[in-house]
């Protein structure tokens, strides 16, 4: 069980670190767009749109990685003072009733939506825009699936932690 969790964590960690490169790319491309447009009067809408793709990749594919690092903000008024065991319990319940259903629901709801876009090889509606809307839409599924996997991993970790804790107590 814990090896599955380990594998998922590794996968999402790679994914998060991989898309983190998109942050600096976004900054550089945006800078280039401004310099080219105002300095040289040239520009391509495809270039503008590429930033949207990078941006979407960062926040969608980085979500599970962010969860791993406990960087999704919590209202920690009471949480801070809870015992480690209670924290684990809350995370177990939250993962089971909030994170898991949310990721399953988004996957289910987005599946047809993304497939439809692939069938049409949907392109940008802007003049000279990128013809990869179907790939952009697919990021939604990568997001929900990586979040789902992370939920599974967290469930395994939290359950194991509670069990071993009980044994030692």
């Amino acid at each position, binding site marked *: 069980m814990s090896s599955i969790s380990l594998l998922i964590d590794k996968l999402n960690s790679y994914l998060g670190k991989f898309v983190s490169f998109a*942050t*600096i790319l*976004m900054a550089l491309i945006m800078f280039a767009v401004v310099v080219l447009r*105002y300095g040289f009067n040239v520009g391509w809408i495809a270039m503008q749109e590429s930033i949207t793709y990078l941006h979407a990749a960062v926040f969608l594919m980085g979500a599970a990685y962010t969860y791993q690092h406990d960087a*999704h903000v919590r209202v920690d008024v009471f949480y801070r003072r809870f015992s480690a065991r209670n924290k684990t319990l*809350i995370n177990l319940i*939250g993962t089971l009733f909030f994170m898991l259903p949310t990721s399953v629901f988004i996957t289910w*709801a987005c599946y047809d939506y993304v497939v439809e876009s692939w069938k049409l090889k949907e392109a940008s509606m802007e003049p000279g825009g990128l013809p990869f809307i179907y790939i952009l839409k697919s990021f939604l599924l990568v997001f929900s699936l990586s979040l789902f996997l992370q939920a599974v991993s967290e469930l395994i970790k939290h359950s194991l932690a509670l069990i071993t804790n009980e044994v030692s107590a």
Partner: protein
Amino acid sequence: MEWLALVLFVAVCAALLFGYPVALTLAGVSLIFAGLGIVTNTFDASYMLTVPNRLFGIVNNTTLIAVPLFVFMGVVLEKAKIAEDLLISMSTLMGRFRIGLGFSVVIVGMLLAASTGIVGATVVTMGLLSLPTMLKRGYSPQLATGTICATGTLGQIIPPSIALVLLGDVLGNAYQKAQLDMGIFSPDSVSVGDLFVGALVPGLVLVLMYLTYLIFVGIFHSNHVPESGQTNEHGSVLSLLIALLPPLLLIIAVLGSILFGFATPTEAAGVGAVGALILAVTKRALNVDNLKHIMRETTKVTSMVFLILIGASIFSLVFRGFGGEELLKGFFSDLPGGMFSAVFIVMLIIFLLGFILDFIEITFVVVPIVAPILITLGADPLWLGIMIAINLQTSFLTPPFGFALFYLRGVASEVIKTEQIYRGVMPFIGIQLLLLIIIAAFPELVTWLPDLL
């Protein structure tokens, strides 16, 4: 079944208190309610099928691209230790005055706020650098911690600011909605850029109020400040100018390119991010490990913000599905006293919510619901936006859960009692509330500069 919308809201607030990540709690509780509603035939299931469309709307929202870029810029500046240089050179120069160090902290805080928009970093930097010195020089712990916490939150209100980007996006939509609901087609639109410009004067007024407060304490409560300045210190004006150069260049690059029309706020964020990178390179503060850290931090903060946006989008869909919007509209339009009492109540609610919620949650969950109603009742959207921004900024300071307090507590020595920090920020919270009243009385403070441009 409109009351179910209120039950949903209360349930979300209650669930949040358990401390599970906000974004997933918002989404999860809303989904559970929608499911129960569908089973009991009180909720139209087809609402939930619009989720992919709504999520893709978030993906396609180009205004919000400014968020990761400003975050990136902030993290780079933190790594480049711009604040450190500035604080040291300014405080040695001004150290000969009794309240010189306090002044330095406020002014450096203002400059940092104008070059970036991240609260945590500023508080931590100031807390590490100036708090020990302030205490050593004889500032009371209350005054020292209060000044640092308050100054650290200036980044929220002084543009560029992530809070203003998020608010601008939400308010822009709310304004359009409200105008058209009224059938009065006022030609004004409100954008992130407008909010940036509108926030400049109130931000500077706030800085002046902080400085005035320091002078006031220096004169009337002189036991809180050193008995005399440090006459043995002779900082050089030149070293101050050298330290001032990087932040000033960034401020000119970012705010200048917005004000003078070289770039939209989103584009300016890109300019700022690359500008910060160049500064970091010239300061030799950038290496492969640093860069990795910067990129990963940016990814985490960005994902955190946008997952909340996704959760809030699901929440507002379900809230609307239960008829919640109509319910609130009815409540606010029946309020005696019209717009002002409605704004007062909303400000009070936001202030109170600010004790437990973060500015991002309030912006995404509360503002989209109340703003169109308030604007319909006659509130100027720009003015309302700045009022909300100042109010949200205050939430960083309100004990016991203000973020600025956490950050400072994390770096302050154990000698300082938590109560001292709490007591220290009280006057500054008072100043913030005073500013709210001033802006309520003189909306021109917000609207004057945008009208001029």
